[in-house]
């Protein structure tokens, strides 16, 4: 999964422009839709940290997203916690789950890692399904949004929007910082040649596990935030199809690119919202996008654009 490295400065400018656009977006676009995109963009970016930079394909990331959603919904509705604490609880629960599942999954490499994470997420799915607090097939419905820090009433969509935007921006900055840190360099080295990194004396398993926990916790943060937007945590957050969707978003946008997963999330969420009436054809469309992306533009949209831009000045 080699990706071209990028110069830092254009990314920062692109990031600032996008942030300005997003800050203005709720006045132009339906804010709930943008919030949905931002939650899934954070989810996909968290997933990308693992596959794009560590070369680890997790096919079970819905377990973190779903558990984060369930825990924050339970905290808000049953325990009547304020939203900031509920989000924190969801994030920590997902992070805790990532400690356990990560420690198990990194015992196998490559293709087995994908199968192990998928099977573990199915185990978590069944456990959540049987746990009374998730309310099985009904899910946790009618979750109150509450008042942030006792000041901002989140029932106003505009207040919630800027909270979601702040969480998304914070999450992406953390990911950006991580992949450009010495830790991120080691992670990329593991992706390229694990044996060599081991021979250089690095404790590879510890790096993989740290990345896994960070990725899982951020996915949980995305799930917890999604609860505030939709006032709902349900089985569709934790079922294996959700794991597939986040893989698709990231692949389509570009594995191992900073902004690719967010673009992929926007496209897939937009497609699902617009094609809802088509029912099962959404599944078919997702499958077709998978096949076309793998066969024709493996680097994803952002990855291919960057490859084009990197090629031109050289020749």
């Amino acid at each position, binding site marked *: *999964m080699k990706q071209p490295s990028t110069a830092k400065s254009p990314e920062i400018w692109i990031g600032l422009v996008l942030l300005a656009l997003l800050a203005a977006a709720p006045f132009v676009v339906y804010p709930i839709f943008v919030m949905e995109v931002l939650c899934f963009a954070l989810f996909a970016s968290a997933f990308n940290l693992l*596959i794009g930079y560590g070369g680890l*394909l997790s*096919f079970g990331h819905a377990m973190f997203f779903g558990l984060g959603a369930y825990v924050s919904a339970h905290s808000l509705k049953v325990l009547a916690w304020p939203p900031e604490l509920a989000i924190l609880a969801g994030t920590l629960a997902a992070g805790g789950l990532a400690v356990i599942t990560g420690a*198990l999954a990194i*015992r*196998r*490499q*490559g*293709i*087995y890692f*994908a*199968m*192990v994470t*998928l*099977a*573990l997420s*199915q*185990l978590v799915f*069944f*456990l959540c399904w*049987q746990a009374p607090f998730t309310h099985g097939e009904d899910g946790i419905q009618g979750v109150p949004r509450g008042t942030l820090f006792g000041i901002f009433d989140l029932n106003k969509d505009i207040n919630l929007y800027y909270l979601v935007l702040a969480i998304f921006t914070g999450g992406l900055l953390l990911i950006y910082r991580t992949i450009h840190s010495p830790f991120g360099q080691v992670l990329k080295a593991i992706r390229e040649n694990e044996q060599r990194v081991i021979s250089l004396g690095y404790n590879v398993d510890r790096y993989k596990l740290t990345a896994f926990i960070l990725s899982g916790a951020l996915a949980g943060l995305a799930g917890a935030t999604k609860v505030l937007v939709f006032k709902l945590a349900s089985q569709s957050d934790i079922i*294996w199809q959700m794991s*597939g969707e986040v*893989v698709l978003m990231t*692949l389509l946008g570009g594995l191992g690119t900073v902004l690719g997963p967010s673009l992929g999330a926007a496209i897939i969420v937009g497609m699902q919202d617009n094609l809802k009436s088509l*029912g*099962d*054809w*959404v*599944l*078919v469309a*997702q*499958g*077709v*996008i*998978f*096949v076309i992306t*793998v*066969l024709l533009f*493996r680097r994803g949209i952002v990855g291919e654009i960057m490859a084009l831009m990197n090629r031109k000045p050289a020749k």
Partner: protein
Amino acid sequence: MFELLGVAPQALFAQLVVGLSNGAFYALLSLGLAVIFGMLNVINFAHGAQYMMGAFVAWMLLNYLGIPFWGALVLAPLIVGVFGLLIEKLMLSRLHGIDHLYGLLLTFGLALIIEGVFRHYYGVSGLPYPKPIEGFVNLGFMNLPIYRGFAILFSLVICLATWYGIERTKLGSYLRAATERPDLVQAMGINVPRMISLTYAFGVGLAALAGVLAAPIYSVNPKMGSELIIVVFAVVVIGGMGSIMGSILTGFGLGLIEGLTKVFYPQASNVVVYVIMVIVLLVRPQGLFGAPK
């Protein structure tokens, strides 16, 4: 009526038979996955969808053409196998030499397409498929439903024949050699790309065969594949894909354990395979039959 560990023996044996027949499907599917992985280095995520296709083709043959179960048992694996051949020729062969993960992603996309199409045309409520043999045979300690017994025995025969074909015949030796060093085998004048295509078609055919066998037991449903494939992945992680016999034993063994769990602790029956996977990862991470790295 005497009791065994607080459970009536009739109920116990009945669940064991259910467990063994599930185990037969696990074995057929994990065997196909292992054969494909050995040759193509691809985890065939569409395996569940192809199992479902096997059941649907059998249903279509019966309802549209009036071809009974026994005809479908031969025809459906062939039809789905040809479908697999096309997929390999048109798509999978293009992924040769790039990261294995892309094969997984491609076949996952195919699984979504296949499931979506069948969901659209046939819904998710399930279609009935009549049992080709009704009735029970009295074994003294239990009444065995004849069809279940047939499905178990037939799967076992197919599994053992596959094992024999790969481990003990000349064609199998080509296959094993091509798994190790495709370049050398090619240099000896054997058409390796064709062998790869046929291997994929064969693995897919095994999945379809399991689907035909499953059709009379479960209703024919577009969801049946995706529900099963994740369990089969866990089975494959437990057994390791290095050994053909290992896949067969793990498949049947886990089905049996699942059946026993249904008797003694039913709440855990849908997680027991995953729990065993966790234990195996802790104790023997390379899998029961996998070679240590």
